[in-house]
């Protein structure tokens, strides 16, 4: 299982809102594929799949706030 993590976005940024997921639960993802978009401090950041596999969970849904370093979802 590989965790999709909200990456470091810069000093002083501790969280970000997930604007939208591009993938649905059960979708087969390729490593590097765009999975969701985090919005913080007036900018949006595209988050990519860290590994190939199926999207098996989404922990932070559209409109919810995720913590930097926290898990957004998992791929198996």
């Amino acid at each position, binding site marked *: 299982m590989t965790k999709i993590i909200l990456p470091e*976005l*810069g*000093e*002083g*940024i501790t969280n970000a809102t997930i*604007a*939208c997921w591009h993938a649905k639960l059960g979708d087969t993802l390729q490593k590097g594929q*765009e999975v969701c*978009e985090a*919005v*913080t*401090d*007036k*900018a*949006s*950041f*595209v988050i*990519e799949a860290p590994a190939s596999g199926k999207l098996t969970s989404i922990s932070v849904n559209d409109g919810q706030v995720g913590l930097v370093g926290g898990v957004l979802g998992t791929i198996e």
Partner: protein
Amino acid sequence: MIPRPLVLCKWLKRFANGCDRNAFLEKGDTLKCPLSFFLKSMVPEMIVQDWGLIDYTDAYERQKDCVQKVIAGAQDHLVLCEHPAVLTLGRMTSPDSLLYQRHEIQERGITITSVDRGGDVTLHAPGQLIVYPIFNLNKHGKNLKAYMQKLEELAVDLLKNFGILAISISGKRGVFVGPDKIISIGVGVRKWVSYHGLGINVSTDLSLFKLIKPCGLNVHMTSMQKIKGHEVLMKDVKNKTVELFRERFYD
């Protein structure tokens, strides 16, 4: 006297800048001076391109190509252009943000297009200078907050150069003159390469903004021309914008 390497490097860089500074005055790609090709190969710098008046979706495709190039290791790109009248709907566009029916808007010759960015509705039209900095942020601090702040400061500085006192407001996107918004800012980042950027209202037809709630906010838009009360040349704004980007990101 023999210049020290750092001084020489800076001199070459400035010389290269001077060579392509006027390149964007003509529609098409940058670097009209053959010598600057040689200098570019020695000094990493941004590539300035002017795409002229270009359809939003065409520009977006070209922008994506540039992003891929920069991700692959190419120099930063600074793109300048204008778009024919278009409403772009971000992923978080509220249904209330369009103040007229879609067909009424389209009958006025304005295209409506959905885009894969966050944020609400935005209007682009001729007279609005669009600036797309496609920068590798790994080389500029790798910090979204700092990058956004730098863009806002640059925008305020740009207006100051034209005698306009503007401010950025904490928590609000863009740059304001009093309560009115004059520059919109929206940035996307992929693999730490930035895209989208600034919409600077130089001489935009402000009546078009009455069709929407810009960025979903109850805010009025203004332009440099409206504030100054006389014509502001797009060419001058482009020149100053490029100069400030060089100063802020490369000096």
